[in-house]
């Protein structure tokens, strides 16, 4: 009855939710409360998402080469040819 949940925390306004870990809980409401206690007790966040781990479709390690390697030799896709203006810490 204790399902696995994945936890996403947003550190502050303007940032996106980041995956921080997982936990066990019997249902969504308890998962949210457990996430609050386990992952935000040192003021890590202003918003929490919990997602049933079973709802996540993950890429397979077997597909790693086909999925990710073709991007390796295409440096022109990287945003490294621009100067980041001062005062834009989260670009």
């Amino acid at each position, binding site marked *: 009855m204790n399902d696995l949940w994945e936890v996403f925390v947003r550190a502050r306004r303007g940032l996106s939710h980041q995956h921080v870990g997982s*936990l*066990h809980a*019997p249902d969504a409401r308890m998962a949210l*409360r*457990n996430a609050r*206690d*386990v992952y935000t*007790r040192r003021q890590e966040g202003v918003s929490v998402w919990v997602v049933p781990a079973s709802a996540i479709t993950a890429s397979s390690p077997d597909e790693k080469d086909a999925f990710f390697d073709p991007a390796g030799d295409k440096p022109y896709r990287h945003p490294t040819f621009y100067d980041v203006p001062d005062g834009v810490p989260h670009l």
Partner: protein
Amino acid sequence: MNDVAAYALRLGDDALVLAQRLGEWSARAPDLEEDLALTNIALDLLGQARALLTRAGELESAGRDEDDLAFLRGDREFCNALIVEQPNGDFARTIARQLLFSTYQLALYDRLCDSADEVLSGVAAKAVKEVAYHRDHAREWTLRLGDGTQESHRRMQDGIDWMWPLAGELFECDELNERLVRRGIAVDARALRPAWEHVVTDVLEEATLAVPETDWAPSGGRYGRHGEALGHMLAVMQSTHRAHPGATW
């Protein structure tokens, strides 16, 4: 000890003793998540206790600080209510105590925010948010255990039956309490009961649990008359401080 100091000590002892009881769940809770939840609540209560005991020590003007009051008093000098010193029992009994006590404490702190004593109102204003979560946590578990399996229902009902008669003491208003109510410092404990009953009864009914009917109303904690269990708890809580007087981190 003057009235305000004695009142701060009552509130502080409630928080301190319950913090210690909940701390006993550390590394023993049903799962890791609940281990952290219960110890988080314990730390909230410990923070309240520190501020309240410090205030009691200042007003007493006998040179005692929070540590002296927490670690160098015997059980007959503690003035916590009997409900908080109860042994944890199983998880359901602990949750029953949390539901009954945090509902009371939330109503208390909510009104204490208007206290004429700046420290009491300040502690209350900060603690209201903490205790709102404590009550929410207890409510969620009461619903799940009460309206869960046959076994969880039986244990949750046992827990409520155990704790219920002890809750009455929380709403006693003695002469000290009355004097401080007149000065605008304390909350009239009797006035908290109707709202408390309303909230708790709603939760119990939703959880398919019976509201106990009993005339037994043990009391005396405010005057140092405690059960045997408090002495054992204090022996554990105070042993390090007594073995190493004046030790610091």
